[in-house]
């Protein structure tokens, strides 16, 4: 028996969903036009007024928003309500080092929590469950999103946040956690540790909701077997709300996009042309119910496919595939967005040469980020201690920029390949897509 949070919405007829979308889109475009001068200017540039957008059929007429727009409009330029109406800020990394900040009214938090509640119930969650959230809390949307969703379901919520594996496992055993929410790589690490310590019989987990980074079907099977659970994917991005923009159901075949809140399009990343259903392209979202930070036609840079076939779970909302790649150079490491340009900014600020290489690998299911920098006469010292102090300073600066730990490796001069034209800055050895 399938488990729903809002069955009347999740299983609504396609006609009903379309009706909601048409109404809400027209209203939202007017709201943005009236309150966000930055976007109004973009619309005027294209010669469009809110009256031109009557239904989803007109969506393609609207201008796109990109991460560069968010940077340019930072921090308040895309805010559509008075700041006094906002109750929360969440943040994620931006392109050249400037962070993206997203604002939420109480209404926005409620709808975000609803989306996460749908995901938890799709994974079988009820008020009798113990939801163990070890996504990071704080500015990162992972923790707060699943936490809010779990409250809505009425489950007992364990706000563990990330890290401290010993404590995670102890609480899991002692308090009988039944649903685990974290990044898939951390789930794999927990699974391995639990099996190694012979604690498989001590845990009561039945499901896992894993997102914020790419993972394969092999990884799913591995975690499901080791923990004796069913593992569900969840997708989201801070710009649109956070986790729960889409989520997997019992069919485990793609993630249902919450279409009553977000309209999805697939476009050709090169031309911006809308592609027909079933074609692979860049995912674009339009937020039709949010008040504070309503992005219209936001380009996610995630490459995926939409599937409108009927789903065995009974939900009628469109399904998206797992992201199959990116149309920009963003990396997702340990669930955190990392842009090579951020690393470059830190290196240049610290007086290092711009010749560097980023190597991402996955060891024991955990992502590792290594930044290789060439030694220079200015950085060199006869004292290992001095070099190590500088190295630590660089690690600290990278950590405060990226939010995650990067290993710094000093290499001999002229050993990082300088290819003609564009240098190969990033080597991703994880084979994610």
């Amino acid at each position, binding site marked *: 028996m399938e488990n729903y949070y809002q069955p009347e919405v999740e299983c609504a007829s396609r006609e009903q969903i379309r009706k909601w979308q048409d109404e809400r889109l027209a209203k939202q475009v007017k709201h943005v036009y009236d309150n966000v001068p930055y976007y109004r200017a973009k619309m005027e540039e294209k010669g469009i007024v809110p009256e031109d957008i009557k239904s989803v059929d007109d969506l393609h007429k609207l201008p796109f928003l990109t991460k560069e727009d968010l940077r340019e409009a930072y921090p308040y330029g895309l805010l559509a309500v008075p700041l006094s109406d906002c109750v929360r800020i969440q943040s994620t990394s931006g392109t050249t080092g400037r962070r993206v900040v997203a604002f939420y009214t109480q209404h926005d938090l409620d709808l975000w929590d609803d989306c996460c509640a749908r995901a938890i119930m799709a994974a079988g969650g009820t008020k009798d469950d113990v939801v163990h959230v070890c996504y990071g809390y704080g500015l990162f949307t992972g923790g707060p999103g699943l936490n809010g969703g779990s409250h809505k379901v009425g489950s007992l919520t364990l706000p563990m946040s990330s890290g401290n594996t010993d404590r995670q496992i102890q609480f899991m055993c002692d308090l009988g956690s039944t649903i685990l929410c974290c990044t898939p790589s951390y789930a794999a690490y927990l699974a391995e540790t639990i099996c190694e310590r012979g604690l498989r019989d001590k845990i009561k987990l039945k499901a896992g909701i894993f997102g914020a980074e790419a993972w394969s079907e092999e990884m799913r099977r591995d975690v499901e077997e080791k923990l004796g659970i069913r593992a569900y994917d969840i997708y989201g991005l801070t710009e649109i709300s956070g986790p729960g923009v889409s989520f997997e159901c019992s069919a485990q075949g793609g993630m249902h996009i919450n279409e009553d809140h977000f309209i999805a399009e697939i476009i050709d990343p090169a031309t911006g042309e809308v592609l027909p259903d079933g074609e692979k392209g860049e995912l674009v979202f339009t937020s039709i119910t949010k008040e504070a930070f309503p992005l219209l036609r936001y380009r996610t840079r995630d490459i995926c496919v939409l599937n409108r076939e009927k789903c065995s779970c009974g939900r009628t909302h469109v399904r998206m595939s797992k992201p199959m790649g990116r149309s920009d150079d963003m990396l997702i490491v340990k669930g955190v967005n990392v842009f090579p340009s951020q690393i470059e900014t830190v290196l240049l600020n610290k007086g290092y040469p711009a010749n560097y290489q980023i190597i991402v690998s996955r060891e024991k299911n955990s992502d590792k980020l290594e930044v290789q920098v060439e030694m220079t006469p200015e950085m*060199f010292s*006869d004292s290992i201690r001095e*070099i190590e102090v500088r190295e630590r300073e660089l690690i600290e600066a990278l950590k405060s920029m990226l939010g995650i730990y990067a290993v710094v490796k*000093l*290499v*001999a*001069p002229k050993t990082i390949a300088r290819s003609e034209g564009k240098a190969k800055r990033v080597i991703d050895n994880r084979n994610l897509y």
Partner: protein
Amino acid sequence: MTVKQISVFVENKPGMLAELANALNENKINMRALSLAETKDFGIIRLILDDPFNAVRVLKDCGYVCSITKVLAIAISNQPGSLGKVMQILGDNQINVEYTYAFTAGVKDKACMILRVGDNEKAIEALTKNGVKPLCQDDLDELYR
């Protein structure tokens, strides 16, 4: 009253020392002493050479990052107790030794200690006052005549 030590950055991986030794050999530069300090990823090779200035030029031409450091060289007799005596002087004068390495020179019954200390001037003064004279570059060359 110091001697010139060449410090060279090398990665901690196979073949790096061979490459450096070959570069010096091709330019007929002889090593008198060598010490290697290592970390997980890299090392610093410290060298006392017969021709430090030429060596720096050669190493830079080969693409190495290197620097010249002034270190103390002290000749001691090759018998028990002589190192302790020198160290005692430095210790009594609160002079910290960062690192040290030793080699035996061409002169019979003599060993040579290379010392990197916190304060060269202070160390030279304390040692000289106690009858231990640090070697200068020429003195070092003399040991090989």
